[in-house]
């Protein structure tokens, strides 16, 4: 504890690390959680290196760090998934050494994983009591008691759920509440939320942040893992920043700014707002005319969308997820058939053949990189040629040329700063940011005329976001037409030359970013009053 204030960080940017901050420690009060010099080594890496952490009852601690900084490892030690090699964990002043998650739960620690651990066909109540059911004679579950208990908890903490709903039918934000209730049902006094906002819409995020404040007010301690600085500043009481396994900064949130946190996280100053020289847009490259598209359940999801993207401009499509963005983008890139209307690229009509659309000069960064954009078990090299493997120089007459593939891969890994030991490393072992860099490298290294980027920075670290933003801007500056689809308003505003808002499958408004506000766009995204377009 005594060395807490020492500058752990050699680069000197951990300026906010301070013992002299008033209120950082509260003498006389036993912290809810304290970690001292926690170290965890895996073969070849030190995942956590003497990490210290302090949290009082009723506080929210932001655990900040890039992907691979050791956030998950740290909380896994707390939750009994990993065992610490060195250091101690004190929970309410007593040493805590959970042997497994069950033990950690018994001791009052709850965790909501990024990927929910729910059983979709079961009801909310069944999911919450699962494994800790109250049973009647004969081993039957007492459903009514469970539902009553869930109602009570949900009232107590202001977490609005219906215990009889089937979990699989619920939106992500509500499923998350079920996860939180599950932890509270088991008596959690300390709640770990692992990247809880990664999958949420802006509205759901706001609701979650409000719930977190309520829980803290009720005395629950919360560890909030994220790499979204705005959320940290909005809701936490104190922040611990991890970088390469070390705690490089610990501060009260009140003493922190976006810039200071970003700097601690990345280890250098970060350009959060993007330099974007003014540029006159050219001819229309992509034109979308009254397009209708169906989703996987054959429902009409895009109900007549029209817009243009011109050479040398970024058109940002803002919208809450699930308003037809995915279907629209897949129709443009040839992955989904168009019911009516048409899409053309450089005057050529798009057909339902992705390879044809690519060959027309389209680069596509898909929203779900793991699902669509990468083949996990394949090497980085194979992933870097995933869309060009069949043509020279990477293949001749159906025979692959591995030398050429490797040459290209070496080049791109270097140019796009993909952090990997080797181009033959399986891509699934990379961090989220580096995975996305593989896709961006592949897509932006060709001669194209159109870039379709869907949620290009979702769930990745600040450093990678900065890099990918600069690449998109560079593409625009070179005269490419860029279609950016994003649920992040910050991203839309900092990159777009024009903003279009999609709501329930229609483009409801187009705006000039300089002549609109976050509030107006947010309102339009939520289906608010549509005024006459002020022709962007």
């Amino acid at each position: 504890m005594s060395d807490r204030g020492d500058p752990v960080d050699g680069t000197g940017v951990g300026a906010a690390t301070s013992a002299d901050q008033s209120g950082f420690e509260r003498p006389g009060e036993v912290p809810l959680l304290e970690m001292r010099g926690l170290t965890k080594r895996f073969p070849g890496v030190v995942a956590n290196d003497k990490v210290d952490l302090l949290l009082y009852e009723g506080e929210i601690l932001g655990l900040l760090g890039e992907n691979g900084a050791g956030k998950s490892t740290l909380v896994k030690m707390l939750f009994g998934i990993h065992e610490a090699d060195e250091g101690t964990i004190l929970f309410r002043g007593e040493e805590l050494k959970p042997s497994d998650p069950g033990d950690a739960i018994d001791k009052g620690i709850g965790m909501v994983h990024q990927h929910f651990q729910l059983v979709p066909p079961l009801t909310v109540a069944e999911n919450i009591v699962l494994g800790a059911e109250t049973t009647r004679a004969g081993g039957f579950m007492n459903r009514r008691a469970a539902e009553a208990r869930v109602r009570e908890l949900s009232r107590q903490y202001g977490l609005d759920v219906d215990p009889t709903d089937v979990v699989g039918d619920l939106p992500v934000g509500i499923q998350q509440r079920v996860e939180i209730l599950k932890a509270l049902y088991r008596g959690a006094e300390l709640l770990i939320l692992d990247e809880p906002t990664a999958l949420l819409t802006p509205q759901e995020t706001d609701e979650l942040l409000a719930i977190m404040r309520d829980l803290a007010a009720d005395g629950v301690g919360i560890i909030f893992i994220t790499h979204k600085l705005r959320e940290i500043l909005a809701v936490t009481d104190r922040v611990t920043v991890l970088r390469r396994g070390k705690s490089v900064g610990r501060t009260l949130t009140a003493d922190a700014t976006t810039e200071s946190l970003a700097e601690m996280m990345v280890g250098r100053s970060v350009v959060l707002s993007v330099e974007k020289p003014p540029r006159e847009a050219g001819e229309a490259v992509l034109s979308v005319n009254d397009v209708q598209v169906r989703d996987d359940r054959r429902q009409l999801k895009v109900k007549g969308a029209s817009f243009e993207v011109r050479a040398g401009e970024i058109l940002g499509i803002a919208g809450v997820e699930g308003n037809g963005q995915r279907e629209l983008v897949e129709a443009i890139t040839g992955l989904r058939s168009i019911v009516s209307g048409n899409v053309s690229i450089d005057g050529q009509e798009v057909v339902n053949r992705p390879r044809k659309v690519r060959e027309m000069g389209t680069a596509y960064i898909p929203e779900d990189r793991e699902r669509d954009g990468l083949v996990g078990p394949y090497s980085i090299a194979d992933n870097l040629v995933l869309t060009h493997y069949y043509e020279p120089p990477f293949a001749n007459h159906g025979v692959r040329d591995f030398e050429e593939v490797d040459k290209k891969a070496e080049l791109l890994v270097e140019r796009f700063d993909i952090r990997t030991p080797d181009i033959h490393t399986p891509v699934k072992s990379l961090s989220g940011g580096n995975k996305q860099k593989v896709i961006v490298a592949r897509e932006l290294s060709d001669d194209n005329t159109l870039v379709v980027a869907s949620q290009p920075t979702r769930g990745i670290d600040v450093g990678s976001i900065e890099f990918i933003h600069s690449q998109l801007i560079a593409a625009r500056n070179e005269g490419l037409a860029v279609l950016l689809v994003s649920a992040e308003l910050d991203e839309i505003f900092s990159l777009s030359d024009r903003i279009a808002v999609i709501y329930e499958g229609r483009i409801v408004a187009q705006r000039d970013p300089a002549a609109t506000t976050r509030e107006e766009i947010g309102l339009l995204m939520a289906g608010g009053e549509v005024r006459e377009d002020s022709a962007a």
Partner: protein
Amino acid sequence: MPLLAVAFGLIVGAVLIVVSGDNPLVAYRAMLEGSLGGSDAIGRTLEKATPLVLGGLAVAFAFKAGLFNIGGQGQLLLGAAFSAWVGFNFDLPAVIHIPAALIVGGLAAAILGGLAGLLKATRGVHEVISTIMLNFVAANFTEWMVSRDGPWKDPEGGAIARTPLVQDSADLPRIAGLPTGFLVAVLAAVSIWWLVNRSTLGFEVKTVGSNPKAAAYAGISVTRIIVITMGISAFLAGLGGAIQTLGVNGRFEPGFQTGLGFDGITIALLARTNALAVIPAALLIGAMDAGSTLMQARTNVEPEVINVIQAMILFFVAAPSVVRWILQLSEAEDVDTGVDLATGWGTT
């Protein structure tokens, strides 16, 4: 890991032999002699291993695209029947006759497999279901072709349902005592290995198998790849049937070697779906089959013990955690089979 599985299989077999009152050393020695002792024994092993190599390749190759072809039995029967037809019905020089009979047999099977692929790719019919069903179609179709009123019935066969013997020019010869069919099988294994690892088609097949969504994203026609993969897979199984007909049986008789198609699954798993590793895996199982006769002659061990040993080997290959538990290996040691039996289910 597969070696450990084999060792465990033999140990379990030894226990069974002891229980049935025999000396496992004597039994295994007889099995070894019957499969490797002398050129006759080796020839027998190679002959047994040939359809196993091809059946194993068929399953292993389909696995690469995430498909589970368990229609090997039906595909093998079609390959056998059609190669027999080419063999007895035409009079051609051997250099044309043999390849023609092999290829026609393979193609007949490929059509059957391609059909299962087409059903999967366009209508979402799971290939496990369709290939099992098509096994019955193929078995009954070929049986009818050689039955009393069937067009390919051997007129001299009396009541026996079978085709006439193939012409001498379609007879697969032995070269230096080695069955030519085995060489064809090895050639097929090398070709498949090359296809999977060096060609763009192989890359497409593996991409569809690893992540069909990403394959579509990359511009690969998933439909086309599924049909082609099932076709090639079935071609291999059909080739196995054709070689068996031209090189061993000399004619087609329904119901021969039943179960052979399913041994392909064992082989493919044992080889971890690696085309080259299929060869030693098939040789192992082939040697056990070949050696079982002598083992039976020398001891009172029932030949079913061999089946138990093979089943145990498969069991240990498919359940690496059991082996890990027995040996108390640490988790860090990679004992993954590299084969996910669940793939194929739920992938469209």
